[in-house]
């Protein structure tokens, strides 16, 4: 259970810079997610921490220990891979016991700890099976048990849930979170799925082109994105260019709105972040609180629990609205789009 | 007590060492161009006389083996060579270790050479090997001249004299007996193959009605039970070839080589090789016709050849033969 400190880490592959002067501290015992699209460097960073990639410069520390040049097998890490990486010729039991045996743990203790680990992931009755006889979810649980049973300093997970189907992913998220909390082990989790990031993490670092775009707790990333990139990556956002009129006020398509302009700056390009699920559609002449934009309904998709609606502003700009239940508006109908005053303006 | 132990250890080591040496002295590497049955019999005879003798064999054609011995001159791999045409052997005196065997006195004088580098170990008689089934109505040939008739064109198989010592003697004999004209007539009818083995194999296989080969090779098929094979000793006179053996100069196992050499000249071995492999002995005390159904040499018409001179005229003969062949092609 160690704090991970990354100092000035850089790496490039064949003239391409993949990580650029990264600095990061991952607190002991926290669940830390690296979030970003493919190519942003998140997996490379994880593998640098694991020891499979060698950084060009910079340092990596576990607590006070500089492990930058320590070989991977000596770092005492636990790693869970995207394709599970179970040893195909060994039973579930032997897979989980592998790391313990490598550490020359006494056979009795191996048996006890392996049994405990298998119980934790609910696979006790599968101990003698071979990986080929397991489903994807079961394999991933074995991989998890295998990584945790050795009580590593850090737990590293490289998109472990991407190969599972949607329902399984949800239940596995629960299991991962529970196990991590129980073991209180510093965990670095790599994913491109922002839902996973938000659901599991204590802290999320959104990565962009080898650097960190924004780092923080999930709710602050969602509510207070600092750049368009982050706004659109964490949750989905409508980004509209607006004119900064003064504290709390912006104009858009000739209409004035009250919004959170804390990050706005005059003279800069300011964009308003409108989260689809926070927008409300009301009939045009609805009385009540203002802060509305005049829009027409361009299209809708009814999804049962909610409806996705596409509305158009005068001037042609379209916005996505995510409204609960059934919305009985007609295409072409003039509507009022209510914007919550907490909507944020960013200027990058 | 300790002293006794030590002595035993010394004795043990000494015995082991001697045994190793003794074991070494009992191996002999035989280079031989003869067929497996003959070699088998030779080895059996040797082991009967010297039970501890171990024989390693390298087989191949005479020419190939002589080349090998020559290439290995600095570091000989073989100990004893058995056997090759004396004409071939005469060209390689530097490869041979002179030796006079106690059995040599029983060998007929014409098979000795001054210097005792090698000795004649058996005699070959040139014969016509005829496959009755392939004659297809033609009369079986009785003489060399028969084969020179135009109806035998493409039907007589013979080895390239440049590749075989016995074929050389056959062609040389034809030249001496029938002159250039006779040689050219034979060349016109001949099919030339690259190894002497191919002659008797192809006649036996029925590819040709007649082949010019040596008695011991052809006789194997007769005794073996292939009824259509017949031997014909040309009535105008046939040719003899002697085969010799020698101890390789610088041989690693000279003592064992000499043992084997002596055995091959002994009466028992020469008789066995006669009866079982049809190889005519060079000893003067063996009666061939009493032991086998092959005729005594004395009863055959032989056209004498001076093989010493033949060796000297080697290049010319090969050239003449090739010219004759070329002429026939036109």
């Amino acid at each position, binding site marked *: 259970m160690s704090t991970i400190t990354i100092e000035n880490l850089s790496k490039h592959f064949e003239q391409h810079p993949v990580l650029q002067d990264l600095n990061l501290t991952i607190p002991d015992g926290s669940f830390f997610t690296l979030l970003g699209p493919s190519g942003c460097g998140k997996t490379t960073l994880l593998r640098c921490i*694991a020891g499979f990639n*060698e950084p060009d410069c910079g340092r990596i520390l576990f607590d006070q220990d500089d492990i930058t040049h320590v070989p991977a097998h000596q770092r005492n890490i636990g790693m869970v891979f995207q394709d599970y990486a179970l040893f195909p010729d060994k039973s579930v039991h032997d897979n989980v016991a592998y790391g313990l045996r490598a550490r020359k743990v006494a056979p009795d203790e191996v048996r006890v700890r392996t049994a405990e680990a298998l119980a934790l992931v609910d696979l006790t009755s599968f101990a003698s099976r071979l990986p080929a006889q397991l489903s994807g979810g079961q394999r991933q649980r074995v991989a998890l048990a295998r990584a945790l049973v050795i009580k590593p300093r850090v737990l590293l997970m490289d998109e472990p849930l991407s190969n599972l189907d949607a329902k399984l992913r949800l239940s596995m998220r629960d299991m991962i979170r529970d196990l991590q909390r129980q073991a209180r082990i510093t965990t670095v989790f790599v994913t491109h799925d922002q839902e996973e990031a938000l659901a599991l993490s204590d802290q999320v670092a959104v990565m962009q082109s080898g650097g960190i775009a924004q780092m923080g707790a999930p709710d602050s990333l969602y509510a207070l994105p600092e750049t368009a990139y982050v706004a659109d990556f964490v949750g989905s956002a409508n980004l509209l260019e607006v004119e900064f009129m003064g504290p709390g006020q912006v104009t858009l398509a000739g209409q004035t709105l009250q919004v959170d302009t804390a990050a706005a700056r005059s003279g800069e390009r300011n964009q308003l972040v409108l989260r689809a699920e926070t927008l409300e559609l009301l009939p045009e002449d609805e009385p009540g609180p203002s802060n509305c934009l005049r829009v027409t309904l361009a299209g809708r998709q009814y999804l049962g629990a909610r409806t996705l609606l596409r509305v158009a502003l005068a001037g042609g700009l379209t916005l996505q609205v995510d409204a609960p239940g059934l919305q009985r508006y007609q295409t072409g109908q003039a509507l009022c789009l209510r914007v919550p005053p907490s909507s944020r303006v960013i200027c990058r | 007590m300790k002293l006794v132990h030590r002595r035993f250890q010394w004795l043990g080591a000494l015995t082991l060492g001697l045994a190793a040496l003794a074991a070494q002295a009992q191996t002999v590497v035989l280079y031989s161009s003869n067929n497996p049955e003959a070699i088998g019999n030779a080895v059996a005879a040797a082991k009967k006389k010297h039970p501890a003798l171990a024989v390693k064999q390298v087989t191949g054609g005479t020419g190939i083996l002589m080349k090998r011995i020559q290439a290995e001159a600095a570091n000989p791999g073989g100990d004893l060579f058995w056997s090759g045409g004396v004409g071939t052997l005469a060209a390689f005196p530097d490869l041979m270790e002179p030796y006079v065997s106690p059995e040599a006195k029983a060998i007929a004088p014409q098979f000795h050479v001054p210097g005792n580098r090698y000795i004649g170990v058996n005699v070959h008689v040139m014969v016509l090997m005829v496959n009755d089934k392939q004659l297809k109505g033609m009369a079986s040939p009785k003489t060399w001249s028969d084969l020179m008739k135009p109806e035998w064109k493409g039907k007589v198989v013979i080895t390239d004299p440049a590749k075989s010592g016995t074929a050389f003697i056959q062609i040389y004999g034809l030249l001496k007996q029938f002159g250039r004209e006779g040689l050219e007539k034979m060349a016109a009818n001949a099919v030339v193959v690259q190894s002497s083995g191919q002659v008797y194999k192809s006649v036996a296989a029925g590819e040709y009605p007649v082949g010019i080969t040596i008695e011991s090779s052809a006789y194997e098929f007769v005794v073996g039970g292939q009824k259509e094979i017949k031997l014909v000793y040309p009535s105008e006179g046939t040719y003899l070839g002697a085969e010799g053996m020698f101890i390789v100069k610088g041989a690693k196992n000279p003592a064992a080589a000499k043992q084997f050499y002596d055995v091959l000249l002994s009466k028992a071995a020469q008789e066995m090789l006669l009866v079982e492999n049809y190889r005519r002995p060079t000893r003067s005390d063996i009666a061939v016709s009493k032991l086998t159904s092959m005729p005594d040499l004395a009863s055959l018409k032989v056209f004498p050849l001076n093989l010493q001179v033949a060796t000297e005229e080697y290049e010319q003969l090969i050239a003449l033969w090739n010219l004759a062949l070329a002429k026939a092609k036109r």
Partner: protein
Amino acid sequence: MRRWRSLWPWGVLSALSLALLVLFVAYPMSVLTLNSLHDAQGRLSLAGFATVFGESQYLQAIGNTLLLGVTVTLSAMAVGVPLAYVIARFDFPLKSLVAILPVVTIIIPEVIVGQSWLMMLGNNGLISNFLRELGLPVPSFYGWSGMIFSMTLIYYTYIYLGTLAALRGFDGQLEEASLSLGASPLATRLRVLLPTVAPAILVNALVVFTLVVGNFALSSMLGGQIPLLSVMTYSLFVSEMGSSPMLQSSLSVVLVLIVALVLFVQKRVVERRMVQMVQGRAPAPRQVQNWQGKLLALAAVLLVTLSLVPLVAVVVGAFTRARGPVMHWGEWSTQSMERAFSLAPEPIFNSMLFAGVATLLGTSLALLVSYLVVKKKSGLSALLDYAVVLPLTISGTVLGIALVQSFNTAPLILTGTSAIMIIVYVVRRMPFGVRNASSVLYNLPNSVEEASISLGVSPLMSFFKVVLPVMKTSMLSAAILMWATSISELSASVVVYSGGLETLPISIFRLVDTGRLGLASAYGTVLVTLILVPVALAARFLKVNLFSGK
């Protein structure tokens, strides 16, 4: 310092393996090439090549060899392609028999095939005599007919396996699309199926061509009087022993260039055209009923029987009474077998020893090399990849000659030792083991090894604890393949061997040459048994598939 550390252990191992291959393949080949360009006095000279391209006997040999290559390739295609089509598309009684055919080709060495067909169809052969007694005309087996017949029966397997794989990977929906667009079944086959499958057929056809061109055993046993390249090169080697090797080297180089040219064409022209089939489902085999089904079954039985004839013939010959060179068919005797075991068992021991050591060495080396090439990619390992495939382009005769020329003088004298026999086997047969192992390694994700490392096991130990166990089956099948193909190797070992080092194929070859078919059959039976037993055991008890990755 860090740089050097990263070279251990895999960088060092790559360099070592490369060095071995350079020493025993590249170096001898350059010695051979140099020898082809220098005369007896050591001067640079093109006289060797001038002779090869000037004298009619050599030109004839080249021409005949090329003609033989083309003819056998075409006839192998004529057998292999239809067979593959029938197996891929139809179901008929006794279809499973055909599955054993490729295994049979492995089990029966070429030298035995040649000998057996000679015993059956040679002029004094069992079947020939029988047919002659029936009054039927029997053509001579020596020469073109014998060679084409026996070579086709051996080489069609390559075409068959390659075509079958291509057909099985062919997306049936393409054919359905064609039919739906109005093309007839025949046109569909010609315009859609054939062009896609053709490159796979061609690739294998070219391989067969190079194998025929470099063929030694069957060419010399059945060739009769026809001048052929490999046979001629061998006799040049034998007659030039001790003198200048220029002519044999020139002829060898010509042989290598022909093969190299063909393989170059294959790489550049044919493989470029190979269409990557998107993973599709091949159409399921159609049941064939009544007389057509019976006809196919009959053809299958015929093919299998023909392939098995040599096996039966050699065993029959081993127990047939033989007096000298004459085989008395119908009379039985164990004399030949006794002679093989008691009088002259050295070839048996030699074969087992050399093939055994070569199998151990070759399989380990193949495992190492394939691991380096697939998992530890580097500039060095890319070179290694090429170096390993090189021996496949060099015929056995040429390789043998090159090795003898390179290692019969100081500083490294290997001729006359067991070492050179083992080297020949390893160099010639290891590439197949590498191919076998590589295909398994490609399917093993890197993450499995990394998982082991992350759990605290060093990279080297991870190789032994995680990679090796996964490779177990493939290594076993590579080892068996290595054993079977080493023990039956002839063309290179007959060149490099010397006194006391005769193996079974060499002895059989010599015995057939001197007409001793009884003893040859006895040795042949032992040879086939030595190959058959491991193969059968593996197939039966270990369910090993010998042809993964072939």
